């Protein structure tokens, strides 16, 4: 089994800011460690340093057992990368190199079919066999059957952009968990997975004997899987040796301890300064005190040279003020509604103040239903209407706003849009500050992290004066703290909330659940239902 040992790692950003300093921890054999921290704290950078993608400015990384890395972008691949290419990229380096050599030899043979080229091809194939390439192909076959339900030969040239985000993630996870690498770095492995997919992931991570370091914002997954928690905050990292359940208490205790140590250091510092001043005055009058004065000066210099203990990390302040307002008693009325080809007709009444979780299978029409209520064009039959004074505000999944990509948050706030008046720069910046977005105010939307984009969308809802919130996976990209701030804001919101979510922790804060079944049936449940099967589509 493998381990990872991170020792005194330091990384400085291109603008000179120190992102990580003196980061040291060890993930021992067979451990399942969660890496948590606010959006932008440096989690992905740390993973890139451990995986060797990025060179640390100082410090060292030691590891054994072969390293398998699942990067965050898997799940959102939109280019022409094929299934085969992704599996090759996830393979150990020797296999990757051998595969590239075979591919180069094949291309050479298409151009020149002479004896040296043929021998080179034969050598490349022999090397492919030597590094275990044929065995890996058998594993890939198992992987594609498990993840996609089709053999490797039938899907290896299929482009990833024809797979859903969940299928892309599942494919990569199956590959890494069945592969030879003993240490796995997984950057948000649960993103894009539906709840049965997340449960599958939890079981596999609990079963595996590999050493796993994973980044996740899913509190349920963290609570079930992690046996230790590495926190990146305040420019460094620390390890909580227990699970996520006891993590909050441990973090609070650590912060209090750091604050106490700092307070004691400041007191001692002030005491030494006062002593030096007193002795300085006494030395001026009494030459006998000169030696004591110089000794005290030396002691103060040594104390200052040793430096203060680390500061308590600043708390991320996210303050969401979703106000809403009183509407008619019936907020949403749906009669015999059917989204074309997605479901059977259903009736639904949602009342002012309801908190409705919209759950169910992937591909069953949940997001389309929210878009319809938001006033967008969605093919349907049957009838639906909003109650008196109901103003819908729609939170889309973060990639659903191509028109925002090159605009900055300040620009988007300044100009407003239909239904949301623009605000002046001062008010815009104040609002961005409340959402922890002041530094991202002038950067294009597309360069913001997923969490920043999500928080910005919630800010737009706040400014729109919506009384009916339609939220499509709002916590998917939010760090734990921001997700908790959103829950508090929704709790205080005076209005009606419909949210599509696969976040089990978040779903517990709702009181009604509408379930979109895989069989096309839409029904209501008093409890969250997460085990609806995936909607089967022709492959």
């Amino acid at each position, binding site marked *: 089994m493998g381990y990872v040992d991170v020792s005194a790692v330091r990384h400085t950003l291109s603008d000179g800011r120190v992102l990580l300093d003196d980061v040291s921890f060890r993930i021992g054999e067979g451990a399942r460690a969660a890496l948590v921290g606010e959006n932008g704290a440096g989690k992905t950078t740390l993973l890139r340093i451990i995986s060797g993608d990025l060179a640390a400015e100082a410090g060292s990384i030691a590891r054994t057992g072969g390293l398998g890395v699942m990067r965050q972008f898997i799940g959102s691949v939109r280019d022409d990368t094929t299934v085969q290419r992704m599996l090759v990229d996830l393979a150990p380096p020797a296999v990757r190199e051998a595969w590239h050599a075979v591919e180069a030899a094949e291309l050479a043979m298409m151009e020149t*079919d*002479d*004896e040296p080229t*043929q*021998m080179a*091809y*034969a050598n490349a*194939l*022999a090397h*492919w*066999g030597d590094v275990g390439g*044929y065995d890996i192909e058998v594993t890939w076959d198992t992987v594609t059957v498990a993840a996609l339900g089709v053999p490797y030969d039938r899907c290896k040239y299929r482009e990833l952009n024809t797979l859903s985000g969940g299928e892309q993630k599942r494919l990569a996870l199956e590959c890494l968990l069945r592969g030879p690498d003993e240490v796995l770095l997984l950057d948000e492995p649960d993103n894009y997975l539906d709840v049965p997919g997340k449960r599958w992931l939890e079981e596999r991570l609990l079963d595996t004997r590999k050493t796993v370091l994973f980044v996740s914002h899913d509190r349920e997954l963290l609570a079930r899987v992690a046996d230790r928690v590495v926190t990146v905050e305040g420019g460094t990292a620390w390890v909580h040796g227990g699970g996520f359940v006891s993590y909050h208490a441990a973090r609070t205790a650590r912060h209090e301890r750091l604050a106490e140590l700092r307070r004691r250091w400041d007191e001692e510092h002030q005491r030494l300064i006062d002593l030096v001043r007193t002795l300085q005055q006494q030395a001026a009058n009494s030459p006998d005190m000169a030696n004591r004065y110089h000794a005290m000066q030396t002691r103060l210099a040594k104390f200052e040279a040793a430096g203060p203990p680390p500061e308590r990390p600043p708390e991320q302040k996210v303050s969401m003020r979703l106000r809403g307002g009183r509407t008619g008693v019936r907020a949403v009325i749906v009669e015999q509604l059917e989204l074309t080809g997605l479901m059977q007709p259903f009736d639904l009444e949602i009342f002012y103040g309801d908190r409705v979780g919209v759950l169910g299978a992937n591909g069953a029409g949940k997001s389309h239903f929210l878009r319809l209520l938001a006033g967008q064009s969605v093919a349907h039959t049957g009838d639906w209407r909003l109650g008196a004074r109901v103003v819908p505000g729609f939170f889309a999944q973060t990639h659903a706003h191509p028109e925002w990509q090159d605009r900055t948050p300040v620009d988007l706030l300044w100009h407003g849009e239909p239904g949301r008046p623009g605000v002046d720069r001062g008010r815009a910046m104040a609002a961005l500050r409340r959402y922890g977005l002041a530094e991202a105010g002038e950067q294009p939307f597309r360069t913001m992290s997923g969490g920043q984009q999500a928080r910005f969308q919630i800010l737009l809802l706040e400014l729109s004066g919506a009384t009916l919130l339609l939220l499509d996976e709002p916590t998917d990209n939010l760090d734990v703290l921001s997700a908790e701030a959103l829950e508090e804001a929704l709790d205080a919101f005076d209005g009606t909330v419909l949210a599509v979510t696969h976040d089990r922790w978040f779903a517990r804060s709702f009181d009604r659940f509408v379930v979109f079944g895989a069989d096309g049936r839409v029904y209501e449940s008093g409890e969250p239902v997460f085990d609806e099967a995936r909607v089967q589509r022709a492959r």
Partner: protein
Amino acid sequence: MTLAVPPTVPDPSVRSAVCRLSQEFPELRPRSIVLVVRTCREELRGSPTDALPELVERLARQRLRVSLG
């Protein structure tokens, strides 16, 4: 008489290549074709078994073409 190439244990790659190349090159004596194919098989020793038939046949075809000018 000493053979130029040690006899190769008959295997499917040799058999299938000899059979096809004999039809493809009727102007050559079968013995010459067998010799070339066996030489190629020996040189490609260590290649993956499943790939051998194709590799042997391609290489032997190339050499036979060259010998015919």
